[in-house]
Protein backbone atom coordinates (compact mmCIF):
# COMPACT_ATOMS: atom_id res chain seq x y z
CA UNK A 1 0.00 0.00 0.00
CA UNK A 2 1.37 3.35 -0.95
CA UNK A 3 0.91 6.23 1.48
CA UNK A 4 2.04 9.84 1.73
CA UNK A 5 5.51 10.93 2.99
CA UNK A 6 4.45 12.85 6.09
CA UNK A 7 6.03 14.62 9.03
CA UNK A 8 5.61 11.40 11.01
CA UNK A 9 7.98 9.72 8.56
CA UNK A 10 10.49 12.48 9.17
CA UNK A 11 10.19 11.83 12.89
CA UNK A 12 10.85 8.15 12.25
CA UNK A 13 13.93 9.06 10.27
CA UNK A 14 15.11 11.28 13.10
CA UNK A 15 14.46 8.47 15.55
CA UNK A 16 16.52 6.12 13.38
CA UNK A 17 19.44 8.50 13.79
CA UNK A 18 19.91 7.16 17.30
CA UNK A 19 21.23 3.91 15.84
CA UNK A 20 23.49 5.84 13.55
CA UNK A 21 24.82 7.68 16.58
CA UNK A 22 25.05 4.55 18.72
CA UNK A 23 26.96 2.70 16.00
CA UNK A 24 29.28 5.67 15.55
CA UNK A 25 29.94 5.81 19.29
CA UNK A 26 30.72 2.11 19.50
CA UNK A 27 32.89 2.22 16.39
CA UNK A 28 34.79 5.25 17.65
CA UNK A 29 35.31 3.81 21.12
CA UNK A 30 36.35 0.36 19.91
CA UNK A 31 38.33 1.84 17.04
CA UNK A 32 40.01 4.24 19.44
CA UNK A 33 41.24 1.42 21.66
CA UNK A 34 42.42 -0.65 18.69
CA UNK A 35 43.84 2.44 16.98
CA UNK A 36 45.86 3.50 20.00
CA UNK A 37 47.32 0.01 20.26
CA UNK A 38 48.14 -0.02 16.56
CA UNK A 39 49.73 3.43 16.67
CA UNK A 40 51.92 2.41 19.61
CA UNK A 41 52.93 -0.82 17.86
CA UNK A 42 53.87 1.21 14.80
CA UNK A 43 56.23 3.51 16.71
CA UNK A 44 57.69 0.76 18.87
CA UNK A 45 61.45 0.45 19.03
CA UNK A 46 61.08 -3.34 18.62
CA UNK A 47 60.87 -4.14 14.89
CA UNK A 48 58.59 -7.24 15.04
CA UNK A 49 55.96 -5.16 16.85
CA UNK A 50 56.15 -2.53 14.11
CA UNK A 51 55.69 -5.25 11.48
CA UNK A 52 52.69 -6.61 13.34
CA UNK A 53 51.10 -3.15 13.39
CA UNK A 54 51.84 -2.61 9.69
CA UNK A 55 50.42 -6.03 8.78
CA UNK A 56 47.21 -5.23 10.61
CA UNK A 57 46.80 -1.84 8.97
CA UNK A 58 47.47 -3.15 5.47
CA UNK A 59 45.19 -6.14 5.93
CA UNK A 60 42.27 -4.05 7.17
CA UNK A 61 42.72 -1.11 4.82
CA UNK A 62 42.91 -3.57 1.94
CA UNK A 63 39.56 -5.20 2.69
CA UNK A 64 36.06 -3.71 2.59
CA UNK A 65 34.22 -2.94 5.81
CA UNK A 66 31.24 -4.77 4.37
CA UNK A 67 33.29 -7.96 4.27
CA UNK A 68 34.11 -7.64 7.97
CA UNK A 69 30.45 -7.15 8.81
CA UNK A 70 29.59 -10.30 6.84
CA UNK A 71 32.40 -12.26 8.44
CA UNK A 72 31.29 -11.46 11.97
CA UNK A 73 27.55 -11.72 11.45
CA UNK A 74 27.01 -14.45 8.87
CA UNK A 75 30.42 -16.09 8.84
CA UNK A 76 30.53 -16.89 12.55
CA UNK A 77 26.97 -18.19 12.61
CA UNK A 78 27.87 -20.67 9.86
CA UNK A 79 30.58 -22.16 12.04
CA UNK A 80 28.04 -22.41 14.86
CA UNK A 81 28.78 -19.23 16.82
CA UNK A 82 25.67 -17.08 17.14
CA UNK A 83 26.57 -13.40 17.23
CA UNK A 84 24.15 -10.58 17.95
CA UNK A 85 24.16 -7.74 15.41
CA UNK A 86 25.56 -5.44 18.10
CA UNK A 87 28.53 -7.66 18.79
CA UNK A 88 29.13 -8.21 15.09
CA UNK A 89 28.90 -4.49 14.36
CA UNK A 90 31.10 -3.57 17.33
CA UNK A 91 33.77 -6.05 16.24
CA UNK A 92 33.72 -5.14 12.55
CA UNK A 93 33.69 -1.38 13.13
CA UNK A 94 36.39 -1.54 15.79
CA UNK A 95 38.65 -3.46 13.44
CA UNK A 96 37.96 -1.07 10.60
CA UNK A 97 38.17 2.20 12.55
CA UNK A 98 41.18 0.89 14.48
CA UNK A 99 43.22 0.56 11.31
CA UNK A 100 42.43 4.05 10.10
CA UNK A 101 42.72 5.80 13.47
CA UNK A 102 45.92 3.84 14.08
CA UNK A 103 47.43 5.23 10.89
CA UNK A 104 46.28 8.77 11.64
CA UNK A 105 47.72 8.66 15.14
CA UNK A 106 50.92 6.97 14.03
CA UNK A 107 51.42 9.87 11.63
CA UNK A 108 50.87 12.36 14.43
CA UNK A 109 53.28 10.57 16.78
CA UNK A 110 55.90 10.43 14.04
CA UNK A 111 55.39 14.09 13.21
CA UNK A 112 57.00 14.94 16.54
CA UNK A 113 60.71 15.35 15.83
CA UNK A 114 63.03 12.52 16.88
CA UNK A 115 64.99 15.08 18.85
CA UNK A 116 62.10 15.35 21.31
CA UNK A 117 62.41 11.63 22.07
CA UNK A 118 66.17 12.07 22.35
CA UNK A 119 65.87 14.98 24.74
CA UNK A 120 63.59 12.88 26.95
CA UNK A 121 65.83 9.82 26.76
CA UNK A 122 68.88 11.93 27.61
CA UNK A 123 67.20 13.05 30.83
CA UNK A 124 66.74 9.45 31.90
CA UNK A 125 63.08 9.05 30.93
CA UNK A 126 62.07 5.61 29.66
CA UNK A 127 60.08 4.92 26.47
CA UNK A 128 56.69 5.01 28.22
CA UNK A 129 57.49 8.25 30.07
CA UNK A 130 58.76 9.89 26.88
CA UNK A 131 55.50 8.97 25.17
CA UNK A 132 53.31 10.05 28.03
CA UNK A 133 54.88 13.35 28.98
CA UNK A 134 56.55 14.54 25.79
CA UNK A 135 55.27 12.92 22.61
CA UNK A 136 51.56 12.26 23.20
CA UNK A 137 50.69 15.75 24.52
CA UNK A 138 52.22 17.30 21.40
CA UNK A 139 50.80 14.69 19.03
CA UNK A 140 47.29 15.09 20.45
CA UNK A 141 47.13 18.63 19.16
CA UNK A 142 48.05 17.48 15.69
CA UNK A 143 45.63 14.57 15.87
CA UNK A 144 42.39 16.39 16.63
CA UNK A 145 41.53 17.71 13.14
CA UNK A 146 42.19 14.48 11.20
CA UNK A 147 40.50 12.43 13.92
CA UNK A 148 37.35 14.53 13.66
CA UNK A 149 37.59 14.20 9.89
CA UNK A 150 37.61 10.44 10.21
CA UNK A 151 34.71 10.58 12.66
CA UNK A 152 32.64 12.23 9.93
CA UNK A 153 33.51 9.37 7.56
CA UNK A 154 32.56 6.94 10.28
CA UNK A 155 29.12 8.48 10.75
CA UNK A 156 28.39 7.98 7.09
CA UNK A 157 29.85 4.49 7.00
CA UNK A 158 27.54 3.27 9.75
CA UNK A 159 24.92 2.93 7.01
CA UNK A 160 26.64 -0.29 5.99
CA UNK A 161 25.41 -1.88 9.21
CA UNK A 162 22.00 -2.07 7.54
CA UNK A 163 23.16 -5.30 5.87
CA UNK A 164 23.20 -7.10 9.20
CA UNK A 165 19.82 -5.80 10.28
CA UNK A 166 20.39 -2.38 11.81
CA UNK A 167 17.60 0.03 10.97
CA UNK A 168 19.71 3.15 11.10
CA UNK A 169 19.18 6.32 9.13
CA UNK A 170 19.85 5.06 5.60
CA UNK A 171 17.94 1.78 6.10
CA UNK A 172 15.00 3.65 7.62
CA UNK A 173 15.06 5.82 4.49
CA UNK A 174 14.90 2.74 2.28
CA UNK A 175 11.95 1.37 4.25
CA UNK A 176 10.14 4.70 4.08
CA UNK A 177 10.73 4.87 0.34
CA UNK A 178 9.28 1.39 -0.06
CA UNK A 179 6.00 2.42 1.54
CA UNK A 180 5.68 6.00 0.29
CA UNK A 181 7.35 5.63 -3.09
CA UNK A 182 8.85 9.10 -2.70
CA UNK A 183 12.55 8.35 -3.04
CA UNK A 184 13.49 11.92 -3.86
CA UNK A 185 11.91 13.58 -0.83
CA UNK A 186 12.92 10.77 1.49
CA UNK A 187 16.58 10.61 0.49
CA UNK A 188 16.88 14.38 0.47
CA UNK A 189 15.62 14.30 4.06
CA UNK A 190 18.11 11.53 4.89
CA UNK A 191 20.92 13.53 3.33
CA UNK A 192 19.96 16.64 5.27
CA UNK A 193 19.96 14.68 8.53
CA UNK A 194 23.46 13.32 7.80
CA UNK A 195 24.55 16.82 6.96
CA UNK A 196 23.21 18.13 10.26
CA UNK A 197 25.31 15.54 12.07
CA UNK A 198 28.48 16.02 10.08
CA UNK A 199 28.59 19.72 9.32
CA UNK A 200 28.98 20.92 12.93
CA UNK A 201 31.78 18.41 13.38
CA UNK A 202 33.72 19.58 10.33
CA UNK A 203 33.24 23.19 11.42
CA UNK A 204 34.43 22.38 14.90
CA UNK A 205 37.43 20.58 13.46
CA UNK A 206 38.34 23.55 11.27
CA UNK A 207 38.09 25.86 14.24
CA UNK A 208 40.32 23.59 16.29
CA UNK A 209 42.79 23.46 13.44
CA UNK A 210 42.98 27.22 13.39
CA UNK A 211 43.17 27.73 17.14
CA UNK A 212 45.70 24.94 17.73
CA UNK A 213 47.92 26.38 15.08
CA UNK A 214 48.70 29.37 17.22
CA UNK A 215 48.14 27.93 20.67
CA UNK A 216 50.73 25.92 22.50
Amino acid at each position, binding site marked *: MIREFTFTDVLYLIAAMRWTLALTAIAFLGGGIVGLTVALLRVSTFAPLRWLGALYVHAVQGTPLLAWLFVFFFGLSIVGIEVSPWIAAAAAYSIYAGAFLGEIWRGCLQAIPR*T*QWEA*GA*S*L*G*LGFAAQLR*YIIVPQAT*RLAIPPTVGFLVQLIKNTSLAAVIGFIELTREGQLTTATTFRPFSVYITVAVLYFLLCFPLTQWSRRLERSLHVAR
Partner: protein
Amino acid sequence: MSLVELRDVVKRYGQNTVLNGVSLSVEKGEIIAIIGRSGSGKSTMLRCINGLEPIQGGTVAFDGTIVNDRATDLRKLRQHVGIVFQSFNLFPHLSVEKNITLAPKVVKGVPQAEARRLAESVLQKVGLAEKIDAYPDQLSGGQQQRVAIARSLAMQPQLMLFDEITSALDPELVGEVLKVLEEMARDGMTMMLVTHEIGFARRVADRVVFMHEGRIWEHGAAAETLGKPRTPELETFLNAVLH
Protein backbone atom coordinates in the same frame (compact mmCIF):
# COMPACT_ATOMS: atom_id res chain seq x y z
CA MET B 1 89.82 5.33 37.09
CA SER B 2 88.83 7.84 34.44
CA LEU B 3 85.29 9.15 34.42
CA VAL B 4 84.95 8.52 30.69
CA GLU B 5 86.92 5.89 28.85
CA LEU B 6 86.56 5.27 25.11
CA ARG B 7 88.53 2.36 23.68
CA ASP B 8 88.84 1.69 19.95
CA VAL B 9 85.28 2.84 19.36
CA VAL B 10 83.94 2.05 15.90
CA LYS B 11 80.66 3.45 14.64
CA ARG B 12 79.23 2.73 11.21
CA TYR B 13 76.11 3.82 9.42
CA GLY B 14 75.79 1.06 6.85
CA GLN B 15 78.98 1.16 4.77
CA ASN B 16 79.95 4.55 6.11
CA THR B 17 82.43 4.47 8.99
CA VAL B 18 81.95 7.53 11.17
CA LEU B 19 84.21 6.61 14.06
CA ASN B 20 87.20 4.52 13.16
CA GLY B 21 88.91 3.42 16.35
CA VAL B 22 88.56 6.30 18.78
CA SER B 23 90.24 6.09 22.19
CA LEU B 24 90.08 8.81 24.79
CA SER B 25 89.93 9.09 28.56
CA VAL B 26 88.54 11.99 30.50
CA GLU B 27 89.24 12.60 34.16
CA LYS B 28 86.83 14.04 36.67
CA GLY B 29 86.80 17.85 36.51
CA GLU B 30 88.41 18.03 33.08
CA ILE B 31 87.11 20.21 30.29
CA ILE B 32 87.62 18.76 26.84
CA ALA B 33 86.95 20.70 23.67
CA ILE B 34 86.37 18.62 20.55
CA ILE B 35 86.98 20.36 17.26
CA GLY B 36 87.06 19.30 13.64
CA ARG B 37 85.30 19.67 10.32
CA SER B 38 81.66 18.66 10.06
CA GLY B 39 81.41 14.96 9.33
CA SER B 40 84.60 14.22 11.25
CA GLY B 41 82.68 12.30 13.91
CA LYS B 42 82.73 14.83 16.78
CA SER B 43 79.01 14.80 17.54
CA THR B 44 78.77 11.07 17.02
CA MET B 45 81.52 10.48 19.57
CA LEU B 46 79.71 12.65 22.08
CA ARG B 47 76.42 10.84 21.49
CA CYS B 48 78.08 7.46 22.05
CA ILE B 49 78.98 8.46 25.59
CA ASN B 50 75.37 8.62 26.80
CA GLY B 51 74.29 5.72 24.60
CA LEU B 52 72.27 7.71 22.08
CA GLU B 53 74.30 6.03 19.35
CA PRO B 54 74.91 2.28 19.47
CA ILE B 55 78.47 1.38 18.47
CA GLN B 56 79.78 -1.46 16.34
CA GLY B 57 83.15 -1.98 17.98
CA GLY B 58 85.23 -1.09 21.03
CA THR B 59 83.93 0.01 24.42
CA VAL B 60 82.59 3.17 25.98
CA ALA B 61 82.72 3.30 29.75
CA PHE B 62 81.32 5.92 32.09
CA ASP B 63 82.37 5.80 35.74
CA GLY B 64 83.20 2.12 35.32
CA THR B 65 79.91 1.21 33.64
CA ILE B 66 80.15 -0.14 30.09
CA VAL B 67 77.71 2.02 28.14
CA ASN B 68 77.52 -0.30 25.13
CA ASP B 69 76.82 -3.39 27.24
CA ARG B 70 73.27 -4.59 26.54
CA ALA B 71 72.74 -5.22 30.23
CA THR B 72 73.48 -1.60 31.16
CA ASP B 73 70.45 0.41 32.22
CA LEU B 74 70.83 3.48 30.02
CA ARG B 75 68.13 5.31 31.95
CA LYS B 76 70.21 5.13 35.09
CA LEU B 77 73.37 6.13 33.25
CA ARG B 78 71.74 9.15 31.62
CA GLN B 79 70.78 10.55 35.01
CA HIS B 80 74.48 11.15 35.51
CA VAL B 81 75.35 12.36 32.01
CA GLY B 82 73.65 15.53 30.84
CA ILE B 83 73.61 16.54 27.19
CA VAL B 84 72.71 19.84 25.54
CA PHE B 85 71.95 19.88 21.83
CA GLN B 86 72.56 22.34 19.02
CA SER B 87 68.81 22.76 18.48
CA PHE B 88 67.93 23.19 22.22
CA ASN B 89 65.19 20.52 22.07
CA LEU B 90 63.12 22.07 24.82
CA PHE B 91 59.62 20.63 25.18
CA PRO B 92 57.47 23.29 23.46
CA HIS B 93 54.25 22.33 25.25
CA LEU B 94 55.73 22.77 28.72
CA SER B 95 56.67 25.90 30.63
CA VAL B 96 60.28 26.51 31.57
CA GLU B 97 59.57 25.18 35.06
CA LYS B 98 57.94 22.00 33.72
CA ASN B 99 60.76 21.52 31.21
CA ILE B 100 63.21 21.52 34.08
CA THR B 101 61.21 19.60 36.66
CA LEU B 102 59.80 16.84 34.41
CA ALA B 103 62.76 14.49 34.71
CA PRO B 104 63.49 15.11 38.41
CA LYS B 105 59.83 14.45 39.21
CA VAL B 106 59.28 11.45 36.94
CA VAL B 107 62.70 9.82 37.15
CA LYS B 108 63.76 10.67 40.70
CA GLY B 109 60.38 11.19 42.33
CA VAL B 110 61.21 14.69 43.59
CA PRO B 111 58.02 16.24 45.08
CA GLN B 112 56.47 19.29 43.36
CA ALA B 113 57.47 21.98 45.88
CA GLU B 114 61.05 20.80 45.99
CA ALA B 115 61.13 20.48 42.21
CA ARG B 116 60.06 24.10 41.88
CA ARG B 117 62.86 25.20 44.20
CA LEU B 118 65.26 23.10 42.16
CA ALA B 119 64.07 24.83 38.98
CA GLU B 120 64.56 28.21 40.64
CA SER B 121 68.08 27.38 41.70
CA VAL B 122 69.25 26.05 38.30
CA LEU B 123 67.61 28.97 36.51
CA GLN B 124 69.52 31.27 38.86
CA LYS B 125 72.73 29.65 37.67
CA VAL B 126 71.96 30.41 34.03
CA GLY B 127 70.66 33.89 34.87
CA LEU B 128 67.02 33.29 33.91
CA ALA B 129 65.23 33.14 37.27
CA GLU B 130 62.51 35.49 36.03
CA LYS B 131 61.61 33.21 33.10
CA ILE B 132 60.42 30.28 35.21
CA ASP B 133 56.80 30.54 34.03
CA ALA B 134 57.55 31.41 30.39
CA TYR B 135 57.12 29.03 27.48
CA PRO B 136 60.00 28.15 25.15
CA ASP B 137 58.56 30.08 22.19
CA GLN B 138 58.58 33.26 24.27
CA LEU B 139 62.35 33.05 24.71
CA SER B 140 65.24 34.01 22.46
CA GLY B 141 67.55 31.30 21.15
CA GLY B 142 70.18 32.12 23.73
CA GLN B 143 67.64 31.99 26.54
CA GLN B 144 66.25 28.69 25.26
CA GLN B 145 69.71 27.22 25.21
CA ARG B 146 70.35 28.41 28.77
CA VAL B 147 67.09 26.78 29.86
CA ALA B 148 68.24 23.58 28.15
CA ILE B 149 71.47 23.77 30.18
CA ALA B 150 69.46 24.39 33.36
CA ARG B 151 67.25 21.39 32.53
CA SER B 152 70.31 19.17 32.34
CA LEU B 153 71.80 20.63 35.51
CA ALA B 154 68.63 19.87 37.43
CA MET B 155 69.48 16.17 37.22
CA GLN B 156 72.79 16.95 38.96
CA PRO B 157 74.93 15.13 36.41
CA GLN B 158 78.57 14.20 36.92
CA LEU B 159 79.37 14.91 33.28
CA MET B 160 77.95 17.39 30.82
CA LEU B 161 78.10 16.91 27.05
CA PHE B 162 77.60 19.93 24.80
CA ASP B 163 76.94 19.30 21.14
CA GLU B 164 77.67 22.51 19.20
CA ILE B 165 75.36 24.38 21.50
CA THR B 166 76.11 27.83 20.09
CA SER B 167 76.02 26.90 16.40
CA ALA B 168 72.32 27.63 15.94
CA LEU B 169 72.49 30.98 17.74
CA ASP B 170 72.69 34.47 16.32
CA PRO B 171 76.23 35.78 16.89
CA GLU B 172 75.15 38.30 19.53
CA LEU B 173 73.58 35.54 21.63
CA VAL B 174 76.61 33.25 21.69
CA GLY B 175 78.31 35.15 24.52
CA GLU B 176 75.56 34.69 27.09
CA VAL B 177 75.64 30.91 26.58
CA LEU B 178 79.43 30.67 26.72
CA LYS B 179 79.39 32.69 29.92
CA VAL B 180 77.20 30.06 31.54
CA LEU B 181 79.65 27.38 30.43
CA GLU B 182 82.54 29.28 31.94
CA GLU B 183 80.74 29.49 35.26
CA MET B 184 80.07 25.77 35.19
CA ALA B 185 83.75 25.22 34.44
CA ARG B 186 84.65 27.27 37.53
CA ASP B 187 82.26 25.12 39.59
CA GLY B 188 84.36 22.11 38.62
CA MET B 189 81.91 20.37 36.29
CA THR B 190 83.40 17.76 33.99
CA MET B 191 82.54 18.86 30.47
CA MET B 192 83.03 17.65 26.94
CA LEU B 193 82.08 20.14 24.29
CA VAL B 194 81.97 19.95 20.55
CA THR B 195 82.53 23.51 19.45
CA HIS B 196 83.58 25.83 16.67
CA GLU B 197 84.47 28.56 19.17
CA ILE B 198 88.23 28.14 19.03
CA GLY B 199 88.88 31.15 21.24
CA PHE B 200 86.58 29.78 23.89
CA ALA B 201 88.21 26.36 23.66
CA ARG B 202 91.64 27.89 24.17
CA ARG B 203 90.47 29.92 27.14
CA VAL B 204 88.39 27.37 29.00
CA ALA B 205 89.34 23.86 27.92
CA ASP B 206 92.08 21.82 29.56
CA ARG B 207 92.55 19.67 26.52
CA VAL B 208 91.63 19.92 22.88
CA VAL B 209 90.79 16.95 20.71
CA PHE B 210 90.98 17.42 16.94
CA MET B 211 88.97 14.89 14.99
CA HIS B 212 89.52 14.09 11.35
CA GLU B 213 88.04 11.29 9.24
CA GLY B 214 86.57 9.47 12.21
CA ARG B 215 89.80 9.43 14.23
CA ILE B 216 91.38 11.53 16.92
CA TRP B 217 93.97 13.10 14.69
CA GLU B 218 95.71 15.21 17.26
CA HIS B 219 95.12 15.97 20.89
CA GLY B 220 96.79 17.63 23.81
CA ALA B 221 96.80 20.62 26.14
CA ALA B 222 94.55 23.33 24.74
CA ALA B 223 96.97 26.23 24.33
CA GLU B 224 99.71 24.03 22.91
CA THR B 225 97.58 22.09 20.46
CA LEU B 226 95.84 25.18 19.15
CA GLY B 227 99.00 27.28 19.18
CA LYS B 228 101.37 24.78 17.57
CA PRO B 229 99.47 22.25 15.48
CA ARG B 230 101.61 19.22 14.69
CA THR B 231 99.62 17.94 11.74
CA PRO B 232 98.90 19.78 8.47
CA GLU B 233 95.20 18.81 8.81
CA LEU B 234 94.81 20.67 12.09
CA GLU B 235 96.75 23.59 10.73
CA THR B 236 94.48 23.76 7.66
CA PHE B 237 91.44 23.47 9.87
CA LEU B 238 92.54 26.22 12.23
CA ASN B 239 93.38 28.50 9.35
CA ALA B 240 89.95 27.90 7.88
CA VAL B 241 88.01 28.65 11.07
CA LEU B 242 90.14 31.51 12.31
CA HIS B 243 90.09 33.51 9.09
